[in-house]
Structure formats: C-alpha cells, structure tokens
C-alpha cells in the first residue's frame, strides 16, 4: 500500500497529509501517520467545531478548571470541589448496544477520576427510534443493560437521565453519559506530564487490538459498508478492572504519588503520551516494548491506536515509582513503566529496537486543521415555521391525555432506571424519576443537584431557542430541589458537519446555549461534540444535551418531590400564562403526527424570577410537591403528579390548547391551603405570575371548562397508560 492510500484508509484528507509532511519536513513513518490520523480525527481534534466552541461563556469565580482538561471542576466551598463531564458513545452503541453503552460509562468515569475526584453519580441521555421496531427495542434494552451492567458493577450510582424516541434516531441512537465526581481541593490532579525526568507509568488493563481506529474513526465518518475487514473490533468493558483502577488512582492521589494523570480513551496511547506532554510543554520518550499486552505480535501503530479500555497513564517523580507500583500491586492491577518525560518538545516512540516516531508532541494536539465549514440558514426553515396546524374544534381532551401519557418519551421511565443502582454511597436524597437528582455531601450541609436535558424536536424547529430552553429548563429543575446552577457541560449531537444546514444548526445551538448561560451566569466547563449522526444521508434532529450541576447550601431538609401531593391541597401554576402555540409539543407529535411551526422563545427575565421563586419556596417549605411543566404541558404535569402522589385532581381551564402548550419557565406545585397566602406573597415579590388551577382529591383527573372539552379520566386509567407504556412494549 502506498502512503497516499494509507492516509486515506486512515481517514485523512490529502491536505491533512501534506500538512503532516510539512510539520515533519519529510513523509511520516507508519506509526506517525497512525498517531496523526487518530489525533486529528474529528472526534479527538474538534476540527469542525473548535472555531465555534469559543463562544461559550466559561468563566465564573467558582470555576477551578474550565474546558480543555478531562473534566471541568467547580468550587463548592469549604474545600470541596466537584468535577463533571459528559461524553457520547452513539456509534459504538449502534454497533453493539450493550458494550457500546458500557464502555461509554467506563470512559466518562475515567475522565472524572483522572481529575482526582471520586465519581459519585452518573446520568444518561439515551434516544432511539420508535419501539414499534424490533431492532430499536433491541438497541434500547441493550443500552439500558449495558449502562446497568457497567455502572452497577463499577459501583457508581446512576441518579438521572432522559429517554426519548423519534424516527430520526432509528439508524443512529444517541447514548450520552454524564459523570459527577467529588474531591477535596488538595486532591485535584491535572493531565500534565510534569517536568523532564518524570516517569510515565501505564496502569490497568492489558493492551489488545481493541477498537483500532474505533471511537476516533468510527465517530468521525459515516460508516462505509464496504469496510467490513477494517471494521474495528468491539471493545468490551470490564467494570471490575475499572473499579480497581478507581481505587488505585484515588490512593495514588491521596498519597500524593503522581504529578499528573491522563486517561486512555479515544486515540489510546497516542493521546495519553502527547496531550500531557503538550500541556506541560515537554517532550517524551515512549517505549512500546514495555506496554503490557493481551495479544502477541501487535505492531507499533496498533499499540499506539489501540482503544483498550480501563487504562490510565500516571506521570510520576522517579523516586516515587516504586510506591506507585506498590499501590497498583495492592489493588491487583498491572502497571508498567513505559516512558520518560524529556526536555524540549519531541515525542519519540520506540518499538522493537527502532525509533518508530519522532515528532513535536504539540503538533498532534494543537496543529490539527481547523475547519470553518460553511453554514447558512436552511432554505426550508421558513417553510417549517409556517407549517402549523389550525385547530377548529377541541379534541377529546381525556382521550388525548391518555395517548400522550402513553407516548414512550413521556411515559414512566422506571423500566429503565430500576435497572440502575441509584442509591450506592447513601447520598441519594432525591433519585431518578424526579426533575433533578439531589445528592447530599455527607458531613456537610451541602447537597449537589444534577440533571440533564435534551429535546431534538424543539432544536429541529429552532436550534437557537430550543438549545437555550434546555439550559433554562435544567436550571429550573435543579432549583426545584433547592439548588442554584453552578456549571453546565454540553454534548452536541449533530448530523454531518459538511452540510451547511447542519453547521447552521450547530452554530445556532451554541448561540442559544451561550445566551442562556450568560443570562443565568452559568459557565460551560466542558463538553463533547458528536458529528456525523446520520443514516442514509438523513441527519438526526440537532440534539444538544445539557448536563447541569447545582449546589444547595444548605441542603433543604425536606426537598419537594413529584409524589408529595395530598388530598385537599391546592394546585397552583407558576410562571407565564399558557401560550397558544403547540409547535413541537408532545400533543402535536403524538395526536397529530405533526412536527412543524416555531417553538416559543425563552425569556431570561421570567426564567430568573421563576428560579428565584422556586428556590425560596423550597427553602420555606411551602410545598411538598413541585413539578415542572415541560413535555405534554400542564395536563401531563398534573397527571404525573397525581399518578405518583396517588391522588386525583380537578382543574379548571378555559382553553384546551393551554393544557398541552409547552411554553417555558413554568411549574406546578401542591400547596396546603394554609400556605396559599405566603406563596402568593412570595410570587408577587418575585414578580412571577401565578394562578390557582384547582385542588387535589378524588379518583379522577377532571378538566373542567365552560365550553366544550371538559374531561374526566380515571386516575387508574392514567396510571395504566403512563406506567404500562414502556414495559408493555418491551415485554
């Protein structure tokens, strides 16, 4: 094979290859080409997105580490820090759902404990095609089992997430995983190689031919059917190895035995050698013969590109090496000394008596091309916005409600989350099934709130508004358990960036996220970009996912939950009035099979007021049950609260569209009658409109209006629809 063919086979363009030749002032050796190809892949280099990611606000006084490291780190006060990150494993999960999801969990955990933190919580965002299709059911159940199989065994609770189904994900499911870790300030470790003389120790699993070109090439180009032989081997997760690796690393940090640490993920050793050296401004000698391997006869490029899981690279003072090896031995993991940090900036790689690579370390990390791909407003967007439905007659509201409750994206997701250990570590005060999870920090008055939100339909109809609304919704959700938003991580799942439409969606989405984060003063501390989510040239809906961490300090003694409403309590709605817009709503999608129109714009002033109000309500314990109004509108919000609280409700309304409208910044709460006065006062102080919708009680969900459209649904039927939707499809 000629060099030209080789670089193309590795996914490099001719221009990129020329650039490598210029850097090296000669044609690259095979191992060098392998390293450039993985490090300059879309997945590792962000070459199509980098130009736009700078838009994000990333600063706040409490940010300790912003984007650029393995995870973002924020200050929680009193010496506590939290690390967080989100990552996608979309393509691997399509190829092999169980292992794809499992290794996604493994990877995000490593990003967090690389920083010195103990991972304390996982969240996941998963999206599939409709469950009427057998393959989608196979993918869904495989992904859920994979998250459970890895997360439960590695011993990190999965406390939240979101599941959605849309046609566009049929050939391209989304699997995003987020992790939050906790540490004391003096435990923080960075991904640096330290200084010349430091020794590189490779810890954990033996290296095999796993996913050669896997995540990087897989995640960077659409799958080419003809490439069966080159199809990377599926990576198998070993949560047991990762568990030992976590404990070993935490012991290394506690005993101050490392100068820096880098996890091995996409691009494997190529990345773990070059990134820390580039960050430290040093060179490195890497000896591939010292790498502990699972298979015989691996070539140098294979060793450099292998994506074997559960590996870490530690950079260690020479006189601490024995201590490091002793800790590894105690935890029964393998360790080998594979390199030495050098002055200068040259990365040299040795194998079998030869120098197989000699290149500037930073050229792998910093010299990747930056593509300013063309983008522009799609010609079809105006048509999409005007493609609305005019409703002449009201539907049968009761009937519609039952159908919307039984839509798998709205229905009870406990079929999935009851397969996840969500209680380990005894921190989970509010777990999955609520608007946000709340985890106490033992020994303090603090608690961490976390949530994640995505909404493909909204972002398709208007990427800027849709993306902004994700941030507002997430911030409101953590407020509902008494927490203030501290930091966002984002996972940008988009189609093919070579299409101007997709790049437009991408830039609009970044704009929306940035605007909302600026309005609320929330920094973006990390994220991930996943492009090429398409099948047969059909791009997925633009699907950014927002992961948000909040802090409650002090933690509420009795945080409200969705299931706390009781007979006799009043049902109030907070926030703007219903809009008359059903664009993008669950109603329109489920009942009319229609996706069109333009979603309502967010409003930062009312968003902030609603957040302040709900935090005050939680602090004053004014309501035992609060739930946000999102998918399915107020009708679904009320139904969900009633089903989980096991009590009916009667609500009055004037306009059926308002029951299903999904305009933002709203929530409902159950208010004991005696507290209605203080609640009204508080709301008026925060200038948040409120309205009393009705009262809890009875065995029905009753919607009463003067005109046509009154409805009466047995709570039992609503429960069956909502609880049974997913299990009955998965049986």
């Amino acid at each position, binding site marked *: 094979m000629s060099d030209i063919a080789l670089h193309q086979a590795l996914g490099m363009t001719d221009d990129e290859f020329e650039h490598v030749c210029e850097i090296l002032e000669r044609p690259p050796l095979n191992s060098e080409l392998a390293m450039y190809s993985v490090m300059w892949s879309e997945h590792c280099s962000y070459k199509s997105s980098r130009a736009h990611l700078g838009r994000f606000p990333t600063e706040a006084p409490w940010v300790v580490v912003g984007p650029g490291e393995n995870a973002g780190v924020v200050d929680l006060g009193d010496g506590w820090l939290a690390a967080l990150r989100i990552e996608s494993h979309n393509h691997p999960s399509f190829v092999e759902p169980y292992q794809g999801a499992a290794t996604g969990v493994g990877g995000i955990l490593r990003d967090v404990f690389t920083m010195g933190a103990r991972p304390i919580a996982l969240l996941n965002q998963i999206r599939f095609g409709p469950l009427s299709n057998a393959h989608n059911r196979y993918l869904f159940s495989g992904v859920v*089992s994979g998250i459970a199989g890895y997360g439960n065994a590695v011993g990190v609770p999965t406390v939240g997430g979101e599941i959605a189904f849309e046609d566009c994900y049929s050939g391209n499911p989304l699997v995003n995983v987020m992790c939050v870790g906790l540490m004391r300030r003096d435990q923080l470790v960075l991904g640096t190689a330290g200084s010349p003389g430091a020794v590189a120790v490779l810890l954990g699993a033996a290296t095999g031919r796993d996913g050669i070109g896997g995540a990087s090439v897989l995640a960077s180009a659409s799958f080419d059917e003809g490439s069966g032989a080159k199809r990377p081997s599926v990576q198998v997760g070993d949560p047991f190895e990762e568990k030992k690796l976590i404990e070993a690393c935490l012991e290394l940090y506690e005993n101050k035995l490392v100068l820096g640490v880098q996890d091995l993920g996409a691009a494997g050793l190529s990345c773990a050698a070059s990134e820390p050296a580039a960050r430290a401004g040093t060179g490195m000698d890497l000896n591939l013969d010292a790498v502990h391997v699972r298979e015989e006869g691996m070539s140098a490029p294979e060793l450099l590109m292998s994506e074997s899981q559960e590996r870490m690279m530690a950079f260690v003072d020479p006189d601490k090496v024995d201590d490091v090896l002793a800790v590894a031995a105690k935890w029964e993991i393998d360790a080998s000394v594979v390199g030495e940090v050098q002055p200068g900036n040259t990365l040299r790689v040795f194998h079998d008596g030869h120098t197989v690579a000699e290149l500037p370390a930073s050229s792998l990390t910093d010299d990747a091309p930056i593509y300013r791909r063309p983008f522009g407003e799609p010609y079809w967007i105006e048509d999409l916005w005007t493609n609305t439905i005019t409703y002449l007659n009201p539907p049968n509201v009761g009937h519609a409600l039952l159908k919307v409750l039984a839509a798998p994206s709205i229905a009870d997701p406990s079929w999935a989350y009851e397969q996840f250990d969500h209680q*380990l570590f005894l921190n989970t005060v509010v777990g999955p099934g609520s608007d946000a999870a709340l985890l106490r920090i033992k020994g303090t008055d603090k608690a961490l709130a976390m949530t994640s939100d995505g909404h493909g339909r909204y972002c398709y109809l208007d990427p800027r508004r849709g993306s902004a609304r994700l941030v507002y919704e997430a911030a409101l959700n953590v407020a509902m358990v008494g927490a203030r938003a501290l930091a966002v991580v984002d996972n940008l799942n988009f189609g093919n960036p070579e299409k101007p439409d997709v790049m437009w969606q991408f830039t609009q989405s970044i704009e929306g996220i940035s605007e909302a984060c600026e309005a609320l003063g929330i920094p973006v501390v990390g994220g991930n970009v996943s492009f090429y989510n398409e099948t047969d040239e059909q791009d997925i809906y633009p699907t950014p996912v927002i992961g948000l961490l909040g802090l409650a300090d002090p933690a509420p003694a009795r945080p409200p939950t969705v299931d706390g409403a009781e007979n006799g309590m009043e049902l109030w709605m907070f926030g703007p009035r219903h809009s008359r817009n059903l664009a993008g709503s669950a109603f329109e999608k489920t009942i009319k099979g229609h996706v069109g129109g333009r979603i309502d714009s967010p409003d930062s002033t009312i968003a902030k007021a609603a957040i302040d109000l709900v935090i005050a309500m939680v602090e004053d314990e004014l309501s035992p049950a609060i739930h946000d109004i999102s998918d399915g509108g107020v009708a679904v919000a009320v139904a969900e609260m009633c089903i989980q609280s096991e009590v009916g409700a009667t609500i009055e309304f004037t306009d059926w569209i308002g029951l299903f409208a999904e305009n933002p910044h709203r929530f409902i709460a159950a208010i004991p009658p005696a507290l209605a006065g203080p609640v009204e006062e508080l709301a008026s102080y925060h200038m948040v409109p409120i309205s009393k919708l009705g009262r809890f009680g009875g065995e029905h969900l009753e919607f009463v209006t003067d005109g046509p459209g009154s409805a009466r649904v047995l709570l039992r039927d609503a429960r069956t629809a909502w609880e049974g939707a997913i299990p009955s499809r998965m049986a």
Partner: protein
Amino acid sequence: MTTAVVVFPGTNCEHDVVYALRAIGEEAELVWHRDTDLSSFDGVVLPGGFAHGDYLRTGAIARFSPVMTEVVRMADAGRPVLGICNGFQVLCEAGLLPGVLLQNRDLKFICRPIHVRVEHTNSILTRAAREGQVLEIPLNSYEGNFTATDATLDAIEADAQVILRYCNPAGVVDAAANPNGSLGNIAGIMNPGGNVAAVMPHPERACEDILGSSDGRIMFESFAASLEAANV
C-alpha cells in the same frame, strides 16, 4: 465490639455498611480480602458489590480469598457473620449457607424498595425484630434468585432457617410479591446456629428517613446485639 467489613476487589458497599454500623454506635473497620487475621474482631460483614467482578459465578472466586479462612473460623466459633447481597452469594459458595443465587427471573437488574416479612427472630439479623414484622428495604441485585435442591429446601424450611421472605406491604407472601423468582419468596436465611445469616436486599440503604426508609436499622441493631451476646 468491633466488626470487620470485608473488602474484596470489586466490593462496593463497604463504606455504606461501615457508615450504617457507626450510625448506631458500633465500631467497624474495613478489612482487605488478603488479610489473614481477624482475631481482633467480634463479628464480620461481607457487604454487597461485585467481588472479583462476579465472574464465572457470583461469589465463586471470592470464596477463595485468603480472608475467607478466617470468616469460616469465626462462623465455626459462633461469631456473628453477616452477608448482604453479594455477601450472601459468597457465603453460599463458601458452603456456610445452603443454596445458590441465580439470575433474576426476568434477567434484569432490580434496584427498588421491596418488602420483607420477618419469619424468625432467632438470627443475628432479626433478633431485635418482631416475628411477622414487615420491613421496607431496597433490593439491588441481578443475581438474587434464591434456589436450592428440593432436599435442601425442605431441610431449611423444616429447620426454620428462613428468616426473611418477600411480601407485599401488608405482609402477604405470594407470587405477586416475589421480585426475582426466589423459591419460597426467600430473601434471607441463616445457618442452623443462627450466627451466620444473609439477606439479599440492602439494610444499610434503609437506615435514615431522608433516604426513604429506616427499617434496615433493626437489622444492624440485631447484629450489634448479637455481637454482645456472642461475647458473653
């Protein structure tokens, strides 16, 4: 009185068990699976998790960890030995308790609160409880499906070695209340002496109201009382 909480590679509930024991005023210390001397301890807990990755069969490899020799010695000496979840599986593999735990009937991991009924109060896990008492405790397992040969099952029933059964909130033991397919709805058993006992759900996750239930405390109080009794 100090309790050893054993940590195998892959164990993950060890800190939670120590936390729960300390919360009721007991002393507890982590012990690594390679330790071979537990003589300074009065009792031992094998906590939940995935010892040795649960590879091959759950508990199979853990049973050979060096510390197990000491666990067997303590069991023989009449000391309290408690297995929770994965610890249950290890005690079965080690032959300290009868039966085995298979995959759940529906082949799905189950993490949710369930109810168990106290069948007997003559074990280290139930001595502070009332017979017939219904406790709400979170289950968290993939291999919680207790099974045994007919002969073994008859023997443990005849011997009154079943200490906890899955039931509904009203205390009725029936098929609908069986989350995982366990024979006889068995959720916890003991050895003939009552000093070795194991339970599939996690009492340490039910020791504080803020976490949803404090019904598990009574099991740790039983265990603590047993430490005292065994020491007389």
